[in-house]
């Protein structure tokens, strides 16, 4: 069955802005993720098949693209993934709920706290735990810092691949400051494991707020630096404008979300439209652009960084007034008691022992929780049998969906543009392969 089932026309109801850059759909119809060489060209032309092997100069990780080239024009494309398949889902079935929280971070290793958040939210949804306000706001702060971190890595590596090599050092300078903040709060630069089912693992240390404010004051200047370097740079504009077009209809059909969807004119952001944590209590804008190309995806991410700085500032203001409040829920069947109590209270000792050795049990059921990670909709589907270990955990990877759009975006691109397109889709291979 090769033809797509046609829409009846009543279904195009999504919040769209602007006109599509092309008519109809450009999804290669036989297999959506493969761009086939036209048979005529294959017989008459001189098509060269090149392997962008799993180990290649660009910094996306282990993505393998098999590209057919007619001169410099890309006429055929297919992606091979799975070089980083880690078996997260099966590993998490072997660990108790508490220990399994360590795993999701390594999935999307650039936006690590978002994966942790989505898994912890899923556990809390099934346990129906009430998370204290301080934990919610701190989670939001850390996730927004992580969004800035992820977009900085995207910007640095994308610009590096297109030849704007200095951007790498500029972006990593701010990234180091963000990682310092993470280290101040959680003790680890990456893979912080700070979120716990019920709240945060530890209280927020003193000295965090002044440091965070310093970062928030500095970051807009850094963003100006990046804009100065790139925004009116003729080479950057020529290499990114009009490249990698993906209309809104195609983007939704291909399951795109996040900056790729917003650069295609669809006004959709889970932080605003399906509010989680405390996003309805902060003031931020959702950048939407209509160009559907690599340049607009870059603009969406730049604007998102500025908006994230605003959110972080509001979170700091709010958190400073919450000194002394609890940072984790007080349901002792799920949360460890404070260490001082272990010396005096028998019940605390027993609860501590049971929670650490056997683990708390989550009632039977299935949930699907989705949040807006820097790459798009990151979802976690958890099935519990009522026991101490998850029965099934599955992560909806935004990068997997993003890579499916490569073939559609790569129509009429030169091989150099292909690098720009793959960079703009911002796929992290750990997230793709899990």
């Amino acid at each position, binding site marked *: 069955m090769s033809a797509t089932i046609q829409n009846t026309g009543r279904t195009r109801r999504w919040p769209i802005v602007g006109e599509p850059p092309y008519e109809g759909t450009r999804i290669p119809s036989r297999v959506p993720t493969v761009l086939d060489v036209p048979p005529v060209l294959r017989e008459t032309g001189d098509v060269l098949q090149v392997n962008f*092997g*799993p*180990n*290649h*100069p660009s*910094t996306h*990780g*282990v993505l393998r693209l098999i590209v057919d080239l007619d001169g410099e024009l890309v006429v055929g494309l297919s992606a091979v993934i*799975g*070089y*980083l*398949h*880690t*078996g997260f889902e*099966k*590993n998490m079935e072997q660990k108790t709920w508490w220990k399994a929280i*360590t*795993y999701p971070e*390594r999935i999307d*290793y*650039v936006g*690590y706290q978002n994966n942790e958040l989505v898994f912890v939210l899923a556990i809390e949804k099934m346990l129906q735990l009430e998370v204290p306000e301080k934990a919610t706001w701190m989670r939001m702060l850390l996730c927004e810092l992580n969004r800035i971190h992820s977009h900085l*890595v995207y910007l*640095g*590596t994308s610009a590096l691949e297109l030849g704007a090599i200095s951007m*790498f*050092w500029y972006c*990593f*300078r701010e*990234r*180091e400051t963000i*990682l310092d903040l993470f280290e101040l709060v959680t003790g680890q*630069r*990456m*893979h912080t494991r700070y979120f716990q089912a019920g709240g945060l693992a530890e209280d927020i240390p003193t000295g965090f707020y002044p440091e965070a404010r310093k970062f928030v004051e500095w970051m807009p200047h850094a963003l100006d630096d990046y804009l100065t370097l790139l925004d009116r740079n003729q080479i950057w504009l020529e290499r990114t404008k009009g490249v990698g077009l993906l209309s809104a209809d195609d983007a939704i059909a291909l399951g795109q979300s996040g900056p790729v969807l917003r650069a295609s004119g669809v006004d959709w952001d889970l932080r605003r439209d399906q509010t989680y944590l405390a996003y309805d209590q902060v003031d931020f804008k959702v950048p939407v652009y209509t160009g559907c190309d690599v340049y607009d995806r870059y603009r969406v991410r730049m604007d998102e960084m500025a908006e994230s700085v605003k959110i972080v500032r509001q979170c700091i203001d709010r958190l400073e007034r919450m000194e002394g409040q609890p940072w984790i829920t007080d349901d002792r069947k799920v949360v460890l008691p404070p260490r001082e109590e272990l010396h005096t209270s028998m019940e605390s000792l027993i609860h501590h022992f049971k929670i650490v050795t056997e683990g708390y049990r989550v009632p039977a059921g299935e949930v699907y929780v989705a949040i807006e990670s820097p790459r798009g909709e990151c979802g976690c589907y958890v099935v519990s049998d009522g026991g101490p270990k998850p029965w099934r955990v599955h992560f909806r990877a935004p990068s997997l969906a993003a890579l499916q759009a490569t073939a559609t975006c790569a129509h009429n691109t030169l091989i150099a543009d292909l690098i720009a397109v793959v960079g703009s889709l911002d796929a992290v*291979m*750990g997230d793709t*392969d899990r």
Partner: protein
Amino acid sequence: MVTRLRDHGLQSERLLWPTKGPSRFEEELGVEELEQALGMTTLEKAVRWAQTKSMWPDTFGLACCAIEMMSIVGARYDLARFGMEAFRSSPRQADLLIVSGRVSHKMAAPLRQIYDQMLEPKWVIAMGACASSGGMFNNYAILQGVDRIVPVDIYVPFCPPRPEALMEGIIRLHEAHLAGVPPAYERKQVAT
């Protein structure tokens, strides 16, 4: 035991004052001090020094450790002061393979192919817990330690290692090489 030049049979020729006796030159200076003072060395040591100061890594970033490896190229943990900021994409031009990240069985074949394409002398740093031993992923998909397929010189633990930790690993590799420790493929007698 410190050897003096006179132990090596050096005797100054005295034409003007034959009865003076051995000079301080022969009695006090040792071979190592003379080498340092005059900048003399053996060819092997000179070559090893040059190799240490410009050991170019290969772009073999796999997972989370790759992000920390990119950090040491950044301005704070500057790898350029060791002459190593030139990450070569072609294994033919690279000396050092920093396996940064978890290696799945599907990736093991390309990893071995990259290692084979590198020219001697070559070193391997297993960065992170996953490359050293499989890390937290003891399952069907992940190679339990990259030393099952390539000989490893230095293991850098942690998940992911701080940039300073990776730098410590790199510096220890430099020190080992300067001291004359052969690369891992010679020690483990692995066909390259």
